[in-house]
């Protein structure tokens, strides 16, 4: 009981000032993303803003990583475009609800641990791809527009990156937004504003059920979208949680985070918002601004809603150029520049995995596909690497009648060909002895290869003797869970 209170105090109230201030800074970075990606998803900005409020507030309570920021994200919005275009908003809300259910299911089944199969190269590829997507999403605002837009974006970026040299007490994205809005209003510059993009929230969100028939057809439409949304949302959330873990030198509960994302999305769907997930850029901003506890996430959501509901008239006058500048900053901050430097230093295989992930994502706008390709490639590279650990030596007996083959290493599908090729099948000899006691036969491909070798020798009239096969094929058993015992390790490495 006392422990519970202490945990609550630690995760909520141990950093009041830092959390309260960071919440404001983060809210300022949430609004542009919510507005920009609502527009890309093809819905009113209020759908994204309600979603951001709702997801941030709910995940503050039920999330597994204090200090992480979740809201409406670009990664998710890009997956909804076709659904909204072909079926409309109601189907999006239903898909959001289903996404939440699937994510809760994933949390209950502890699928968060599957993240261990996502290698570091894939994670970096994901992050870079995400940054590129966020940047690309700004392009429509920058094409076929007059020079004032370019000038405003450049001035906005200048303010964002140079203002911190004057003071670090005022959030520079706020300075950028306020200054550009004031400038365009004062001089009557005719550029697109947020108000031109669609309806903004005019009230607090209200509870509503999607107005859809509860039929199999509905499910068939939303299910594929919900699955992709759930996967991408969880991937980005797990990766962000790991990043926040590293930055704050503390740990998080990944399965609780899965369930939390689900609950937050369900709440968002019922309040007329779209699906969202954790945000890498905004979480970094939160930590950098001194946010550590759950309070920072909660306040970010609350500030966001207060700002857009009560300052709605003013928000409508913000030029899109200001938001584009903020989003370009988020894209730049999300991108892992270290990975570019390391591209030459790292093994070629890991660079290929990273680059392929990025390319697939940018081509398909689907982060799940990119991760799938990345994971597949990592697995293939790994199998290839391990498959090379195989040596077959041979010696002729003193009487010249028996050839002794000594097999050392890993025999499985990628190395089976090489295994067969290592035997001199053209040698006319009385007897052959194959010692496999220092080898591992991991799958039936390996056993098949050995059978093939035996048959070929027999057809030449050579007598074949196999030594140590039982030991070598122990690894074939599916429940080969002996790696936690020292003697098992010994058997695996050195027998």
């Amino acid at each position: 009981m006392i422990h519970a209170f202490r945990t609550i105090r630690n995760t909520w109230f141990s950093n009041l000032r830092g959390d309260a201030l960071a919440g404001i800074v983060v809210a300022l970075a949430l609004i542009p993303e919510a507005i920009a990606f609502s527009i890309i998803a093809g819905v009113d900005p209020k759908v994204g803003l309600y979603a951001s409020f709702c997801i941030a507030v709910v995940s503050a309570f039920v999330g597994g990583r204090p200090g992480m920021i979740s809201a409406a994200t670009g990664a998710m919005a890009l997956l909804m475009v076709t659904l909204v275009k072909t079926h409309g908003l109601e189907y999006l809300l239903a898909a959001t609800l289903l996404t939440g259910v699937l994510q809760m299911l994933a949390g209950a089944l502890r699928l968060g641990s599957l993240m261990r199969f996502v290698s570091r190269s894939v994670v970096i590829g994901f992050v870079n791809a995400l940054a590129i997507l966020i940047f690309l999403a700004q392009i429509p605002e920058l094409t076929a527009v007059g020079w004032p837009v370019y000038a405003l974006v450049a001035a906005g970026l200048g303010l964002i990156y140079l203002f911190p040299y004057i003071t670090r007490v005022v959030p520079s994205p706020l300075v950028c937004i306020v200054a550009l809005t004031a400038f365009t209003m004062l001089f009557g510059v005719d550029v697109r504003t947020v108000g031109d993009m669609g309806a903004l929230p005019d009230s607090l969100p209200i509870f509503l059920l999607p107005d859809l028939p509860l039929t199999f057809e509905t499910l068939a439409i939303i299910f594929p979208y919900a699955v992709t949304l759930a996967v991408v949302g969880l991937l980005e959330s797990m990766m962000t949680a790991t990043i926040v873990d590293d930055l704050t030198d503390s740990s998080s509960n990944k399965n609780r985070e899965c369930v939390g994302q689900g609950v937050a999305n369900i709440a968002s769907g019922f309040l007329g918002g779209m699906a969202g997930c954790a945000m890498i850029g905004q979480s970094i901003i939160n930590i950098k601004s001194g946010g550590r506890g759950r309070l920072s996430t909660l306040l970010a959501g609350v500030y966001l809603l207060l700002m857009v509901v009560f300052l709605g008239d003013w928000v409508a006058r913000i030029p899109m150029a200001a938001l584009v500048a903020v989003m370009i900053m988020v894209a730049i901050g999300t991108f892992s520049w270290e990975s570019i430097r390391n591209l030459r230093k790292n093994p070629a295989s890991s660079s290929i995995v990273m680059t392929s992930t990025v390319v697939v994502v940018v081509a398909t706008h689907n982060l799940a596909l990119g991760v799938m390709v990345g994971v597949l490639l990592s697995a293939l590279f790994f199998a290839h690497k391990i498959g090379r650990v195989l040596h077959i030596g041979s010696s002729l007996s003193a009487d010249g009648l028996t050839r002794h083959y000594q097999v050392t290493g890993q025999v499985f599908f990628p190395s089976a060909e090489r295994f067969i090729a290592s035997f001199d099948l053209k040698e006319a000899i009385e007897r052959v002895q194959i010692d496999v006691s220092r080898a591992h036969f991991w799958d039936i491909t390996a056993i098949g290869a050995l059978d093939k070798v035996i048959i070929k020798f027999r057809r030449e009239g050579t007598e074949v003797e196999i030594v140590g096969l039982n030991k070598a094929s122990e690894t074939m058993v599916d429940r080969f869970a002996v790696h936690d015992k020292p003697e098992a390790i010994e058997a695996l490495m050195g027998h």
Partner: protein
Amino acid sequence: MKNRILACIDGSSYSTAVCDAAAWSALRLEAPLTFLHVLHKEQAAPPVDLSGSIGLGARESLLEELAVLDEKRGKLAREQGQQLLGAARLRARTAGVTDPEGLLRLGGLVETLTGQEESTPLLVLGKRGEAAQVASEHLGSHLERVIRSLQRPILVTPSEFRPPQRVMLAFDASPTARKALDMVAASPLFRGLPCHLVMVGADTATASADLARARQILEMARFETVAVILPGEPEAALSRYQQEQGIDLMIMGAYGHSRIRHLLVGSTTTAMLRKSTIPLLLLR
């Protein structure tokens, strides 16, 4: 582990006095001396940067920045601790103590001391710590918690320590006070110093009988004893007597009452700790 006097130093202005008091006690008791410095890893307030802009390599540089901050703090604290201990050991050695040792631990002060309690016959502490130098009326935040959670004699020093010439024992005939009396009589710490036995309250027959018995115990231990009964409030009377008689160390039983009583009527121990300008030996 062998028994040794434990002296807690933390780099505040009280540390020199603690060091001197500890050296004096070690020489008197002919006991080994260990200086203790506790490094507390604090949940440091994150640096305030509300600029909210993230640029090239923001994640890597932020991680580096935060790690460097923690690393620097940790290393600095450890080096500082070693230096403090070194200075204290040198000072004690100059005072004549053979081989004073240093002990550097991570954690909280109270938990560290509780862990060391078994092998500590006497604990020396400063009245206030590093964090509480300004408000002179206030006690160090750790002091009362330390005194309450340890069952060992504790010598609390003010900001300056001079070897005492005249000591006084605040006596109220309570079990705690009787135990304190026996400890004083048995210990070599004050042997040879004149000892004033002071009771505060009405001069009744029982009071003077108690006092006479107590005086007898001290005289049997060959203490030059003065015994008095003072009227009035304990805190005021004790301080006045101490100033009039030029007493430079006071011995008293500490926290004889429950926490609840403490909450309602306050505690003589806390009041004396706050007011007194001379070292106090608190006996549990």
